[in-house]
């Protein structure tokens, strides 16, 4: 279960925050120090996702979709409001984010698994199974840097989906590897899908959201602007995007 209550997140604009102690002290001494401005990335997000619900998040780039996922998996803490997440979260965000190229595949499985929140003993006992799924059993004792990027993605996918999670957070790319593995990864995702799992899917693939989600939210500028049936929300979103495009088009003609 996920319950976000009035979640707002502000971030300092990176350009204005000087990571420089000497400069900061000088600015303070001469009275020229100004607090860096803060930009609201999420504002007043209220969202309750019951256990087992499959929900899609749509919206333009920079609308706050990925940030919302980061709040759900605990990477970012809200500036105000509360984020309560019950159950183990498997973030399928950037697969293999915790890999170390110099370690062997087996060591990396343990490292990445523990970073994702699995207990060490648990993941150690599943190394074989994960390697088999990724079709990389022959590479067990080789360092990860010897793998091609597609193979590394397969390994990342295999570890991340081996985590026995209650909540799956998915950002875009569901399919990794070559054509045969893609079918396999899709099958695994579908298997994960049918169980009692909560799924939060961020995607620009609107037909995917319409077919696999039972609920959709549309985000714009850090706010939820619409929430409901995916067919309805996607239709409204598409209409708004079309209207905005037409308006821009018309305005450019007036300018000419």
């Amino acid at each position, binding site marked *: 279960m996920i319950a976000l209550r009035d979640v707002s997140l502000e971030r300092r604009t990176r350009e204005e925050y000087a990571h420089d102690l000497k400069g900061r002290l000088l600015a303070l001494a001469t009275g020229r120090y100004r607090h860096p401005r803060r930009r609201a990335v999420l504002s007043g997000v209220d969202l309750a996702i019951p256990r087992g619900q499959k929900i899609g998040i749509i919206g333009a780039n920079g609308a706050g979709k990925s940030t919302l996922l980061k709040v759900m998996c605990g990477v970012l803490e809200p500036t105000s409001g509360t984020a309560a997440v019950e159950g183990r979260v498997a973030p399928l965000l950037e697969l293999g984010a915790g890999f170390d190229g110099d370690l062997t595949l087996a060591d990396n499985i343990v490292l990445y698994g523990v*970073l994702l929140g699995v207990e060490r003993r648990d993941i150690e006992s599943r190394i074989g199974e994960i390697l088999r799924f990724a079709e990389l059993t022959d590479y067990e004792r080789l360092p990860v840097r010897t793998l091609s990027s597609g193979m590394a993605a397969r390994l990342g996918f295999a570890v991340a989906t081996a985590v026995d999670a209650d909540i799956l957070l998915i950002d875009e790319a569901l399919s990794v590897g070559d054509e045969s593995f893609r079918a396999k990864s899709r099958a695994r995702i579908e298997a994960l899908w049918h169980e009692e799992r909560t799924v939060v899917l961020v995607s620009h693939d609107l037909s995917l959201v319409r077919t696999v989600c039972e609920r959709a939210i549309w985000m714009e500028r850090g706010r939820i602007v619409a929430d409901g049936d995916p067919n309805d929300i996607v239709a409204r979103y598409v209409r708004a995007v079309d209207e905005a495009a037409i308006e821009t088009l018309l305005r450019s003609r007036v300018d000419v």
Partner: protein
Amino acid sequence: MVVSASQRRLIDVVRVLYARTLTVRYRGSVLGIAWSAANPLGMAAVYTAIFGHTFVPYYDGSLLRYGIAVYIGLALAGFFIGGTSQALPSIVSNADLLNKIHVPFAAFPLSTLAAWGFQQVVATLPLIVVISLFINHSVLHVVALIVPLAGLAMLAVGVSMLVSGAQVFFRDIAYMYELATFLIWVTSPIFYPAGIVPAAVLRLLAFNPLFPILESVRALVLTDAWPSAQLYALSFIDGALALAIGVAAFRAMRPQFMDLL
């Protein structure tokens, strides 16, 4: 002791990161340890060759005792300075990872320090214990080393957390810490006897937390007497204090980390 879920997770993460550092950095870990063992020995020999004759009156006229005193100083200061300097960039250099997976921040300085500490302990502690037993034939003296060494470990943890957290805010802390370690180096009686320092200055040096640790360990290894109760107690208290300050500062800084990484 009851361990909470978040503490268990911290321990798990520290363990895998520690294992990673040891495997990656010290792939030929025997070679790494051999180097860590040889380095202070070689340096102690150089210091003895240069300063030995001048300082020998402070060591019962024995060059070897001076050499051992320097070796202990180099080993302990090396553990502290090397460990904290490596821990300093550990959070910032893992910014990418922290932006993708929720990992307890403290795991980075702690695992870096632990990997360094393991290597240093294996490389230098056995020799120090052997020397101690050889000089004063007292197991009790060896056991008593636990107190100042625990103080040193706590000091290193506290400072590591403080500087690794501060670096998130100010990336130029690394240069300043380099200067600070040089100050620690000079103001600790590592290669000179504390006896040559004028009394007025010595009172200031006593604020250097390495001072009571170094002097306690030396007293325990080099003499069959006991260090003064005050010095001995301070070697532990300074460390505990540094740990408390480091952890408190880290907790206070932590909520702002992700905004700046």
